[in-house]
């Protein structure tokens, strides 16, 4: 899956990609935190008159209850549809806004980001199979003569095939549905600081009182007929925000 690395545009806006066909709903976003205190998520959706608007679907979700201390700093998080403020159907772009008000951390970012559309279970989420064997006597033995639904089986097989194709096509040793978001943004700190405008090569956000914006993960159309399960995203751009200043 191609990932385009965007060049930071200082003080500028976000380069806008052309219109794209809408992507199916977002079911779950899974990521690993790295010292981000609060997360906001905005999605871009088609508006009533065909234009696209940005809508906030998660506002200041707390990842670290006490930003000066380690609690929650390297934990894994899941954001599900029902936690979002708005409908996340027909999403064309997703924007993650990371905030870390504490000045004691050198870098903050989120890692191992995965976005799952509905119908595809997040990989490790199925419960052990014996759990369904716990109350066997109550289930009537109704499957004896019945064959499983062919439609369902074929969709599942299709999904598996698409996933394996995607794995093969990718060079990085990353899991299905993982989107490499590289350097995006940055952050801002007290203007007096010499590192004010620095954007770190390794990605993520650095330095104080940061607000980091990951510009857009927007869907790229690549022509191939894709099943409902795989959506490809690419990093769109990033920009600096100066929200806080100590001068």
């Amino acid at each position, binding site marked *: 899956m191609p990932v385009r690395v965007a060049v930071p545009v200082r003080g500028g806006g976000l380069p806008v990609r052309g219109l794209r066909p809408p992507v199916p709903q977002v079911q779950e976003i899974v990521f690993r935190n790295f*010292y981000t205190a609060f997360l906001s998520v905005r999605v871009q959706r088609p508006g009533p008159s065909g234009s696209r608007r940005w809508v906030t679907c998660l506002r200041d979700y707390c990842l670290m209850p006490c930003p000066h*201390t*380690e609690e929650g*700093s*390297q934990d894994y998080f899941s954001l599900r549809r029902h936690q979002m403020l708005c409908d996340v159907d027909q999403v064309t772009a997703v924007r993650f806004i990371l905030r870390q008000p504490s000045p*004691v951390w*050198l870098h903050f970012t989120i890692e191992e980001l995965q976005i799952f559309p509905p119908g595809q279970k997040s990989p490790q*989420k199925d419960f*052990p199979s014996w759990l369904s064997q*716990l109350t066997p006597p109550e289930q009537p033995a109704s499957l004896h003569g019945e064959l499983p639904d062919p439609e369902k089986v074929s969709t599942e097989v299709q999904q598996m095939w698409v996933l394996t194709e995607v794995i093969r096509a990718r060079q990085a040793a990353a899991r299905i549905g993982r989107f490499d978001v590289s350097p995006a943004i940055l952050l801002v700190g007290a203007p007096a600081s010499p590192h004010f405008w620095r954007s770190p090569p390794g990605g993520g956000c650095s330095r104080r009182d940061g607000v980091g914006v990951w510009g857009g993960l927007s869907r790229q159309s690549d022509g191939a007929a894709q099943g409902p399960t795989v959506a490809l995203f690419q990093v769109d751009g990033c920009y600096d925000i100066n929200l806080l200043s100590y001068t």
Partner: protein
Amino acid sequence: MLDPDSGLSLTIARIVQRLKGSSLHSQLERQARVSLHKPEIKLESLKEDIKDFLKTSGWEKKLQNAVYSELNVFPSPCHPAAPPEHMKEPLAYMRKAQGSWEKRILKSLNSMCTELSIPLAQKRPVSEQKELLNKWNEMGTDEPDLSLFRPVYAPKDFLEVLMNLRNPNYENGEQPSFRSHLGLIQVPLKVKDIPELKEDFGELGLNIGQLGIDDSAQVPPEFFENEHVRVGQKVLAEQDSAAAQQYVRQGCPTALRADLWALILNISNQPEDILYYEQLKSNVIQHDLLVDSLIYKDVKLTASNDDYYFVFEDYLYQVLLCFSRDTSVLEHFTYSSATPPKSYIRGKLGMEEYAVFYPPNVAPLCFLYHEPSKLYQIFREMYVRFFFRLHSISSHPSGIVSLCLLFETLLQTHLPQLFYHLREIGAQPLRISFKWMVRAFSGYLATDQLLLLWDRILGYNSLEILAVLAAAVFAFRAVNLMEVTSLAAAEAVLADLSTLKVMPLLQIFLFATVT
């Protein structure tokens, strides 16, 4: 984080999985089958009747206790995407530090082996096995030559490691600033402050009766003690773990303590437990581990010289030698940041794993339990629930790093002058209190006071009370400490804790200090 529904299902799934193969499960099945012969069980309402039977015969309670025990011991399930090492310890740099510490210990052990030309593990010759079996109950009379063995590490070595722990993503500048900590611990873990501790340790409040305070000679027993003992007997009759845990927060009457602790730790002396102990004993007899000599030496140096514990020397050997071979202890490594090193028996391809640990605190338990197998089980359960956290590097709130930070923070916040003074004279308070906390005060307090303290550890399922007590001791001796001018003098002031009364100190520090 998991949202509540899937979190609950995962917890249930995990507990069921753990209990599925246990002896409790087979006992429940057996009971259910036996109950089929009873007249009150009808075929139409089989399931309900069996459930009622299990309830009335007390088996449901046993199951409840087992579930409660699992909930207490294992951490809440983390995110399904999290790898297993994340469950052991979420912070990567702490995992790394624990790994290097273990390597260091292992290297030290290995070099000791090479120096003394003793293998880490070897099979005992048959004659030696017979001899050991005969002497099993009086191993203390043995006087092997242990002069060449040195301890693998001392508390101060471990403290050095903890002092040098740094988060690479933290602003560890050279200049002192508001970011650097004034104490020895420099990692920014979340620790509680006194208002939060007051809330957590609510049952230690001034208006609530405590054993250790309200059972002293001057207080008539009708006020508190008699009633408390009555309630304790009732709790034991009900055999309810959760109720017992709540009860011991106010202290345990001496006569009931052994049974109450066994109830809280969910230890029942089943035949298979006794068998397990016998099996461990036979492992000890057949194989000789290097660790055994270290244990001997440690026991000889500490407990045998102690006025209170020397009588238990033989018990200590029996328990500790078995413990070093107990592979079921390894289960706790799934939630401990430590990883057990492996040792191979010379000449055999078999793997015998053992945990390298800082000799833990068995001696006080000998006062309570007299049969070796029960003593062993209690000790093992206490180790895998609490004491292992004192010997490994982790970010857990009851881990030794958090306890040290909690101690230093409490002292700085509430006794700033004392803290500053001690720091100026080169006597960082943690240097003195570390050895108390890492041994859970065993060997420093009088035994009855120690057992009252451990009642609270069990009751609150946390070791934070150790840090609070350490700070309270400093507060108590603050006047003397303000006058000392060196680390040695400070240590002398705090050398003897055997006359201290634990509960009044804790109460005053938490609830009666003007801030």
